[in-house]
């Protein structure tokens, strides 16, 4: 039987106790303390748990966000553990029914949070490695929890290479942060867009076109890619082409989720539940699942 050790799995808010009962479905009521409009489609929500409790997440984990009366959906956590105190942040794209309503919320409104769920990136096992992080589009939000964690433990890692691809300049996330990374000597950042506008002076092309500009030591590099399903096929080809083996490549999977706790069946990939055994997998693990890629 194929068995992956489930590492890094912990949750601080679920199950929640109430009157001596516990419920894995009962969200914790949290408050929105800040909202920042990031792009036409994305907003960043800062969320405070009761009594300023620390979310206690690992990079790459997600929470289930609820608006009772509308629904619940999995959202990747954007904050790194190193930058999580009494609040944490979620970068939410207006892509569906629930997120559409989330985008109408105001500072001070309450929402439901369960989690953090899933297997995050085992960042401590990457100590001493060169890190190549390749997010596409909204994938930069979950990737950022890892990038910030690395930056805040910078001496524990080798090089930090970030290859970021976006559809067009207006959809680029975290432009202020990108500018900061750009200035740093210990971060190698490259950004490309598929469809440039008149003012764009940077690189043009899909994310895979960035790989020819970067040389890595295949013996000592861990790659992490987060993006839409279609991207993985091409990015993994590039990474394999650079001599990485499938165990050195990590990715994060998106699936429909209704419970987050391995019961509802929606996120199943072969026999695995993405909400529990994922969403982070190595490419080697993904190759063992016919349904993964």
């Amino acid at each position, binding site marked *: 039987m194929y068995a992956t050790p489930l590492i890094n799995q912990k949750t601080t808010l679920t199950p929640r106790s109430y009157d001596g009962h516990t419920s894995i479905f009962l969200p914790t009521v949290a408050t929105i303390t800040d909202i920042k409009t990031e792009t036409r489609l994305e907003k960043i929500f800062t969320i405070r748990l009761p009594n300023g409790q620390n979310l206690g997440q690992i990079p790459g984990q997600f929470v289930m966000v609820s608006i009772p009366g*509308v629904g619940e959906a999995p959202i990747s956590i954007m904050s790194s553990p190193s930058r999580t105190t009494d609040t944490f942040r979620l970068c939410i794209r207006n892509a569906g*029914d629930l997120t*559409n*309503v989330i985008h*109408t919320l105001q500072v001070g409104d309450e929402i439901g949070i369960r989690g953090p769920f899933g297997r995050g990136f085992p960042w401590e096992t990457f100590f001493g490695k060169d890190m190549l992080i390749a997010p596409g589009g909204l994938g930069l939000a979950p990737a950022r929890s890892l990038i910030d964690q690395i930056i805040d433990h910078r001496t524990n890692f080798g090089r930090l290479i970030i290859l970021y691809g976006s559809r067009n300049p207006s959809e680029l996330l975290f432009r202020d942060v990108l500018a900061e990374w750009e200035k740093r000597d210990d971060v190698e950042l490259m950004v490309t867009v598929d469809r440039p506008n008149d003012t764009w002076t940077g690189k043009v092309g899909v994310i895979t076109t960035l790989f020819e500009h970067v040389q890595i030591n295949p013996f000592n590099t861990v790659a992490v890619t987060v993006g839409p399903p279609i991207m993985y096929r091409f990015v993994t080809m590039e990474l394999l082409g650079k001599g990485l083996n499938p165990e050195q490549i990590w990715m994060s999977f998106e699936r429909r989720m209704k419970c987050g706790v391995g019961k509802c069946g929606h996120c199943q990939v072969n026999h695995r539940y993405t909400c529990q055994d994922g969403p982070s997998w190595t490419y080697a693990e993904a190759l063992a699942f016919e349904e993964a890629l």
Partner: protein
Amino acid sequence: MPAKPKIAFFDFTSCEGCQLTIVDLLQTHLGLLDLVEVVQWREAKTEKGEDYAIAFIEGSCSRASDEARLKQIRERAQVVVALGACAHLGGVNTMKNRWVMENVQTYVYGKDGQNAYETYPARPLSAVIKVDAVIPGCPIDRHEFLRIVQQMLQGRTPKLPDYPLCVECKLSENSCLNKHGKPCLGPITRAGCDAICPTYGDGCEGCRGWATEANFVHMREILRGHGLSDYEIDMKLTMFNHYQMHELGAKAPLTTSTTENVPLPTSKFSAPQED
């Protein structure tokens, strides 16, 4: 959408039974009137306001002259909702589309029938104007109506089940009619009515339109198993969904022609005798 949107009800070719369902719903859910302001509703209200955000339209379009009024409503409303099978699908009104219009007119009103009234092949609202949301059924399901109104008030896109009726039949533990010799279109019809007809022993006739993945080939196979002829199966598939079957065309071909060369029925409801 404002806090308390103004809504209006309109009717075209229909029995107005869907609006009646809403009137009836108000007996148990008067709170609905705290959520919306009804400015025009011929069936339930005398005053007529022309300033509305949501237009609920019952009935199909069965006259060329109806199109202008529909377009006017579309221009005034931010959101247009097709209310019931006639508005959503064309519904039973489209059964007449099986015949040439002139023949239908003569059949119903005698040899001067063509001058007696205006008609053209009946069609759903979406064939004439853009429709934003649909509340299916003949008549509509009151709970679904309520849910869809609530979803719109929440700023959401109204959502209908896209799977077949069988799901609801199984959840209610109904004995399958198709397994017991009664033809039922449940396997290809969009759920959402809580399988009300099969629950009371009547086979589904498809009034809610087809499920997204309706498997017509094997539905026909099932109906043939009941001893239905190809013609009878076509009649079943076109009872509410004549317009849709013609839209689907080669994707779900009818085996007999239902637009021409089909003799007008000679039933007890035959044409009035001419002197």
